[in-house]
């Protein structure tokens, strides 16, 4: 039976359909998509190793591991995309595009200084972009997202619609990404789509 290929299924596969939703007049206030192809891993500094880990990450990837609620990284010199998102005291969520066996790669590279746990399937990542993204998020997230208070690179661990989420700002458009526990992604979507409907929103299958 080795010919059976296990087709992956995105967390929001049965609710997201490309198209225009909510208010129909004018340009959509925001664009939403699920980033289903990412690799994720929890990275925890081993006891007393946070300094050494930071040095290792710097030398391995050229990334300054953030020690405050920020993320760091981006396109690496070799073309790959990798960021470390602060996720609590001496903890990060590492996010990569197009990686294979990401947890193994990280364990190999950082395992001496850090504990690595695969979360690629544990979180659904939603991307929101557009002039009304802040207003839509304000309907459920108790974080001040005003440009003076929350900037590209900033990260927050918070809740939305009674669901624990991790939120970060990608750019000044503004673009945000939200990580939500996979089993709860549909409930988060129910809230987010209801909140965005007033502004009109577009669902796209890729960014």
């Amino acid at each position, binding site marked *: *039976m*080795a*010919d*059976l*290929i*296990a*087709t*992956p*299924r*995105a*967390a929001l596969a*049965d609710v997201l359909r490309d198209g225009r939703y*909510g*208010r129909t007049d004018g340009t959509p206030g925001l664009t939403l998509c699920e980033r*289903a192809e990412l690799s994720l891993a*929890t990275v*925890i500094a*081993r*006891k*007393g190793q946070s300094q050494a880990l930071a040095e290792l990450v710097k030398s391995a990837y050229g990334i300054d591991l953030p020690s405050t609620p920020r993320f760091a990284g981006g396109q690496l010199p070799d073309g790959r995309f990798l960021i470390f998102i602060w996720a609590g005291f001496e903890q990060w969520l590492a996010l990569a595009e197009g990686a294979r*066996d990401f947890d193994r790669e990280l364990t190999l590279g950082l395992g001496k200084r850090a*504990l690595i*746990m*695969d*979360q*690629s*399937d*544990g*979180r659904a990542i939603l991307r929101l972009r557009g002039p009304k993204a802040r207003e839509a998020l*304000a*309907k*459920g*997230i*108790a*974080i*001040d997202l*005003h440009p*003076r*208070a929350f900037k590209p690179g900033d990260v927050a661990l918070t809740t939305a*619609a*009674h*669901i624990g989420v991790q939120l970060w700002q990608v750019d000044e458009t503004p673009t945000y990404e939200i990580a939500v*526990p*996979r*089993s*709860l992604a*549909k*409930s*988060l979507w*129910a*809230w987010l789509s*209801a*909140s965005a*409907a*007033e502004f*009109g929103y577009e669902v796209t299958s890729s960014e």
Partner: protein
Amino acid sequence: MTTTSANVGETLSRSETSTPTAGVPQPARLASGGLIDRARSLPFSFDGRKLFGHPGDTLASALVANGVKLVGRSFKYHRPRGILSAGPEEPSALVELRSGARREPNTRATSIELFDGLEAASQNRWPSLAFDLMAAGSVFSPFLAAGFYYKTFMWPASFWEKVYEPLIRRAAGLGRAPEGIDPDHYEKAHAFCDVLVIGSGAAGLMAALSAARSGARVILCEEDFRLGGRLLCERGLIGGEAAPEFVQRIEAELRSFPDVRVMTRTTLFGTYDHGTYGALERVNDHIALPPPFEPRQRAWRIVAKRCVLTAGAIERPLVFGNNDRPGVMLAGAVRSYLNRFAARPGRRAVVFANNDDAASVAVDLHAAGVEVAALVDPRPETKPSSVALAEKTGARLIAGGVVTGAIGGPAVRAVEVREANGRSSRVACDVVAMSGGFSPNLHLATHLGGRPVWDETIAGFVPGDTPRGMAAAGAARGTYDLADCLAAGAKAGAEAADAVGFQTRPSAVPQVEPQSAAVTPLWRVRGHKGKAFIDFQNDVTDKDIELAEREGFRSVEHLKRYTTLGMATDQGKTANVNGLAVMAEITERSIPQTGVTTFRPPFTPVAIGALAGHARGKEHRPTRFTPSHEWAHAQGAVFVETGLWLRAQYFPQEGDRSWFDACNREVIAVRSRVGVCDVSTLGKIDIQGADAPEFLERVYCNSWKSLPVGKVRYGVMLREDGFVFDDGTTARLGPDHYLMTTTTANAAAVMQHLDFCHQVLWPDLDVGLVSVTEQWAQYAIAGPKSRELLEAIVDREHDISNAALPYMACSEVTVLGGLRARLFRISFSGELAYELGVPCRHGDAVIRALMKAGQSLGVAPYGLEALNVMRVEKGHAAGGELNGQTTAQDLGFSRLMAMGKDFIGRAMSQRSALLDPDRQVLVGVKPLDPSARLSAGAHFVPLDVPVNPENDDGHTTSVAFSPSLNVSIGLGLLKRGRERMGERLRAVDALRGTDIRVEVCPNCFLDPEGARLRG
């Protein structure tokens, strides 16, 4: 929210007669003036009568413009009531708005913005407003005084619910609840700012402007649909501009700042800790139906670094006989209807006011062509200002006089006046403009416990200690002069911005004419005729306060509870100060000595729907879906909620008469062939680090260091108090790497507990833990053919034979051609069984592959019902047994406990009470009659003793019908149970009315040697 200021300056000429506008007559509409759009007419209905108003009207102003005086009936006495005020404080003009599922009872006509097609109806009358049979209650009103219900409906107690309550509910009360589920959508939102300004009158506008000009982020909240507060009712000039123009200019500037948010139709209803405020935005209350995708209302949580309270003040009624007759209005409301809405509340007015500000309403009346019959000024010395007003308006000045009573039924016709010399006379009139002074709107300053302070000069309470970060300015802190209000607002706004790092100065204040707000208190008219109301909404009169005092309810809090003064939708906004002043007078104490009642949020009523927002119906709480959900749904699975999870309960097939048939079929499939069940909901915690084995030793009561890599062990976790907390299996994936599983119910609680242990108790341990519940789709594959099924999907290079992967072993494998997976040889069903973990995104494909591969083996999916039946057959403890009151010993785990080490709960588990041999312990029970069905929760009582609590020896915790044994079986907790094997007992279920004889047996009913799971 109102600010107040008098302006006796310019008079704008107005014609005395009204002319029809837009072709529709509005008999009491002034011909010109007012902030209304005369070009458009809005049809609306009141009690089915079709009327017209204009954009810019409230329901109340449109009723005034149509000459409607009688608007409702009072709560207790069913007295005719009209419109008292022009703001949120309205106690009398309460109507039902809209109809059907959108019906809103007890809505204040003064706060409803008129819209095309508005439907309103009067309340608490039968059969009609004009002819109310219940008004007969007034005849008996001497018996209906405060405390009447408490005294009269005391006994017999059996009458409370059956007779008295329906009777009282029928006679008293206000509107009716809506008939269906609210069809509208509500939402919540969060906002943040440097400076929050509450109220947009003179002080609020200047405060917002000063703060905005500094560059600070400002939110200005206004309850009305138009900014300006009391300025909208002024006819005088502000810095050479008409007041409404001044307001418009400031508003335009405020709206030009990108970081200023002006929120109209938004009531700031509560002050909470740390600069948090609650606000209700009525997004679409001003139209018949919200547009698609828009909410009806939005509840805001506003976090502000600083706050300026400029909420204005509320005018107080005077307490004289029949002061509740329709046509008797607050002076400021009369001014508001005339100047803002161009609506004339009457043709012949009497002004009765104890202060200069309100008396000046005579000028507004005169200018609008209303005859001012008399100016009754109760102040003992003749005020030159009153003399001037009387001269200017042609009114008869009755200095030192009082109105003792209003005359008229459904509307006031005249007033009885007692002059300074004691002579009484009657003055015909159809409107009375009364004012007993003003009370600052300080509610929001007291929500965190600050007490108001009495200010003798304004005869009112002002904010005392305000919450941190809040400053009050303008009328809200007792400043009534317009020039002072403008200056105080500008200063407060600048100071607030400055305090959070925006260097600024108060904005320049325009010139206005000086005014006087001098007041001499008159708390009630002595020797009045007829009922003199203090609280209009609750029908509380001055006599009720006397009665309360006589009966010992002298404290203001007791006064409130005894008389209901200050309760209900208006929370005594117009009544509280008058009420406690009368109490002070009776008890010969000062007002500060008498005290003040506590204000609590919300300032005005807030619909529960707005507080719920999106969290309604199935969105009341989030739902968690399992990786196989879509597949199971397509199979027609019936789902059950287990916590937030939605799990397949059973998979019905054609021919199943009920869940019972499906469940039995699924059990038989597992026991005879193979079944698959989604168990992804179990908590999974990844534990790594050099001290991971030590960590496990400390959190579990059994031992862990001896567990080799590639093996799984069952573990029991205790709470600190020695009782069982949770159980599950933990696999050793590597020397320093474990995967713990928890019960579904305790997944989050165990994670929290472990985090606490790690971070607080043992921060020295080199260990890290993370929940990976969401990462893995986990399927139980159980039954004699389970290995055969797995061999079909596990890639060939992995040996999963009994020798390579024996019972309680685990291994990393790949499935379906290279997909990384984890395979655990563990069993909850008691069969040869495995749990297969795959990354969640592949969960859907893997369940489909399993079912496809298993077709030839007769594979069946099984749900929670079958899972539970099989665990009862095996005697495993679950929810009913892990109930927080059982110990490891109770559940038969004494030998599991490794007493040679320390672990959480060890010390307390050795308490004598927990080792008492009389404790109830886990046993199995079977009915003597094989056809009898056991019920969970039935109590064990020895045979031949009475069924009573003394003879209660325990109860059944879980029961199931075992299709394998063809009999009902049960688990239970029984006193000294292990010594009572074979004993016969009664299982008495008083709730379901059953009494079954059972025999005590070991808790494992099937394959106690475990031959099947080792197969």
